[in-house]
Each structure stands twice: as C-alpha cells, then as structure tokens.
C-alpha cells in the first residue's frame, strides 16, 4: 500500500460571513480511492468540493496534495500559476452545470482537444483521434465532433464535459453531481466507466451527490454532511447498510430500497 495519501484535508472550514459553508472537515484520500460526499441540498458539499479543488479559498484548515513527482504540497501555499498547472496536469473538475465546465463557443472536438494541447499535445491527427475516442466512450456520436456544445442536449453537454476531463488521464477528478442531468442508461454507462478507470488507471475521485445509488455503486468511502459538517464517515456499504448517526439513518431510510 502507498504510504502517503494523495490528498489530506485537515480541519477545513469555509465561512460565508457568519454563515457556515463547511466546518472542520478532515479526511485522507488514497490513490485510486473514490470518495463519495452525500447530504441534502445546502449541507456544504459544493463548498467543500470547491475548497478541495482550489476553486475557493478556505477560511481555515489545510489541504496537502501529493504530486506525480512525489512531493507533497500545501495547495493554498502554491502560487496561482502552480495551482493552475495542477488543475491542468493532475486534476479533472466536472462541474454541476456543464456550461460552467465547457467552452460553449468552440466545437465539441476542440473542447476535448484543447485540454490535450494544454499539456503539450501538438499532432492534429492524434488530438482529433483522441477526441473522437473520448466522445465515443461517453456515448456521443463522433460525427458530432465539429458541432458546438450549445446545440447539444443537457445530458450530452455533461458527457462532453466528462470527456474533456478524462482525456488528459488525471490522477484525481472532482465531480459535483455528475450524473444529475443524464438519463438512466447513460448514468449506468458512466458509473461503469468511472469504476473501470479508477481500477485500471489508479484514478482517485471525489464525488459529491445527493443520490445514494450513485455512491453505492461508485465510491469506496463515504462522508455524510449536514449543516456544513461531516456527521459520519466510513466504508460506503457500511454507512449505507448500518448507518450510526441519526441523520445518516434518516437519509438512508428516506430512499426506496433498490
């Protein structure tokens, strides 16, 4: 087993004025591990994810990340440029609303290809081939490679955003409600894809969702959030089958068995 966690969050807190975004969140994420974050709307999931992915400056606490070169860095002690490099070369970020994660004015192929170019790819044929491959993987007809994302359905836009993120083989992907806009069959395909990727590439993932079915299938470990705080953490199947905290029990019992 690897000795250093990929990501280490310690006492992470983010306030919005007097209002709590997230408070005192600590956990380790290991390479290849999929961590699910569940909780009702307003429980602080997006705030936590945005802090972890360096989109939002925490009010307190620390996030350490172990880079590909083996060096552990304090995310918020890095320069802006170093953080951007991390996001391009080591991370993926799948936003809740695909419009926030895509460039709507350039083609689907360019949306996928430009991530590759940002990490140094130059060969036009290769880039286009990769773009076609990832569009197909996410069940987007490769014939639509030159179409603009604004002409795609919401579900297709989300799939395109995921393709754009996976093309650079990130080590850690942050996802905020990734399956929200997708129809059931594409959800299943996507869940399968993410599972295979995490296994084959050692890809780690932090997935925020209110859908307990998604974490049941995808995540190894689970954080349950309420009012900005983590009320329960553990193995996903243990938290779902034998929840300890009253709030986790309420969450689990309020869904229909699947």
């Amino acid at each position: 087993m690897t000795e250093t966690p990929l990501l280490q969050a310690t006492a992470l807190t983010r306030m919005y004025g007097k209002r709590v975004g997230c408070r005192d969140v600590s956990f380790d994420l290991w390479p290849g591990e999929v961590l699910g974050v569940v909780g009702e709307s307003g429980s602080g999931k997006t705030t936590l994810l945005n802090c972890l992915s360096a989109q939002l400056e925490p009010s307190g606490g620390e996030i350490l990340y172990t880079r590909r070169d083996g060096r552990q860095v304090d995310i918020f002690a890095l320069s802006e440029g170093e953080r951007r490099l991390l996001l391009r070369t080591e991370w993926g970020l799948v936003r809740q609303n695909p419009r926030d994660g895509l460039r709507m004015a350039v083609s689907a192929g360019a949306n996928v290809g430009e991530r590759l170019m940002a990490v140094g790819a130059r060969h036009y044929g290769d880039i286009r081939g990769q773009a076609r491959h990832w569009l197909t993987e996410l069940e987007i007809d490769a014939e639509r490679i030159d179409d603009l994302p604004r002409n795609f359905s919401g579900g297709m836009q989300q799939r395109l955003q995921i393709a754009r993120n996976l093309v650079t083989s990130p080590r850690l992907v942050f996802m905020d409600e990734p399956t929200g806009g997708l129809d059931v069959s594409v959800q299943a395909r996507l869940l399968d894809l993410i599972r295979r990727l995490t296994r084959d590439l050692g890809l780690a993932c932090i997935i925020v969702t209110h859908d307990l079915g998604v974490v049941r299938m995808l995540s190894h470990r689970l954080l349950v959030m309420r009012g900005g705080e983590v009320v329960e953490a553990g193995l996903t199947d243990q938290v779902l089958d034998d929840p300890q905290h009253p709030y986790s029990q309420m969450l689990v019992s309020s869904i229909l068995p699947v």
Partner: protein
Amino acid sequence: MSAMTEQTDPMIAIQGLHKTFTLHTQNGATISALQSLDLTVSGGECVVVRGASGAGKSSLLRCVYGNYRAGGGAIWVRHQGAMVDVAKAEPRTILDMRRTTMGFVSQFLRVIPRIPTLDLVMEPLLTAGRSAEEAREQAGTILTHLNLPQRLWSLAPATFSGGEQQRVNIARAMVWDYPVLLLDEPTASLDRENRAAVVELILAARSRGAAILGVFHDREAGDAVATDTIELRANRLAA
C-alpha cells in the same frame, strides 16, 4: 512461523463480539443482535452458523466483512500473514482485505446495471491484479461449473432468475481463492443440481485450506460442508 503452526493458527478469531442496532428514526429503540460472541475458524474449517430467523446470523457475517460496524469486542482476521482487527481497522485496510483475503456471498446480487455477467465475475480477479486472459478463463470455468448457460455470459444479470443471479453472486465470491469465505445462504433459491455444484465448490475451498463461515437455509447443504456448527439465539432487548 513454521508451516506446522500456520495450519492450526486461526484465520478468524472473534472475541466478545457485540452488535446492537439503535434505531434513531424509531425513538431510539435498540435491537441486540449479538452478545459476547466468541468464535474461531482455522484454515480448512467450515463453521456453520445456525439459528432462527433474526438470531443474528447475517449480522455476524456482515460484522466480519466490515459491512456492519461491531459494537464491541474484536474480530481478528489473518490478512497477509498478520492478524487484523476488523472492528478497529481503517476503511482502507478493510477494502484491501476484501480485495485479497475475504470473499462474501450475500443473499442478493447488488451490482452496476448493464455490466455483462462475465465481466462481473472477472472483476475480483482484475482487482487483485490478474491479467484479463487469466481472469476470463477462470471466470468461464466457474460459470460453467455452476451451470450458467454460456449464452447468458454476455448479458447483464438484471433480468436473470433468482437462481441465476445467485450463481453469479457465488461465482464472483469464489472465482478468487480467498483465504476467508463468508457465505450467507449461498444455496437459497437454487435447485438440487446447482446446490450440489455449490457444495462441491465449498468443499474444494475447504480442502485448499480456506477458513469458511457459513449460513445455510437447508440443513442438508450445511451438513455436507460443516466441520463444526454454532447455534445463535435471538435476544432482543427493546428499549
């Protein structure tokens, strides 16, 4: 450690295990499922757990697998040569134990929809680092042994009969030679012929040295595989 002691050292050693459920959504009512349970299982042994419905048989197996959180006591399981207490282990350690040490057959198949049966059965082997060819071959062998028709292998099990799904479940748990096997009614919903095929697999696992803890709804299958039995009694304390 000599080969001699390795044979007789327990693979599972449970000491004073308690499990109580507190139902916060039902005014904090409590259910006591397990009370100071002691149990050891060595390699080559199959301990069959008996008891009426609700006696805590599934809870025991689930605690060992880390699916239920032990309320007290210790659950030592030999993992890569060392005894690890599942009751106190980190999630990461339990996941690692599930990859290579512990296999579990649950009563119901719970998998990602749309994944073909063969891929599902190959998955534990791939996760443990085996090559795709090797995994495919072994998955095919066990599915054949369990009489699952080859025309079903490329299909997702969602539409299968209960008995077919159960056999996929068994194949997934027994395709890899886990040193520890936890079997929760593996022969329920199987006909006589398929029950015999499962009994055969369990006996084979026993003779290769696996430590097995099992619950069987039919006495005959239990008797066929047991080296020892324990009886659990329901002890519900409502509060």
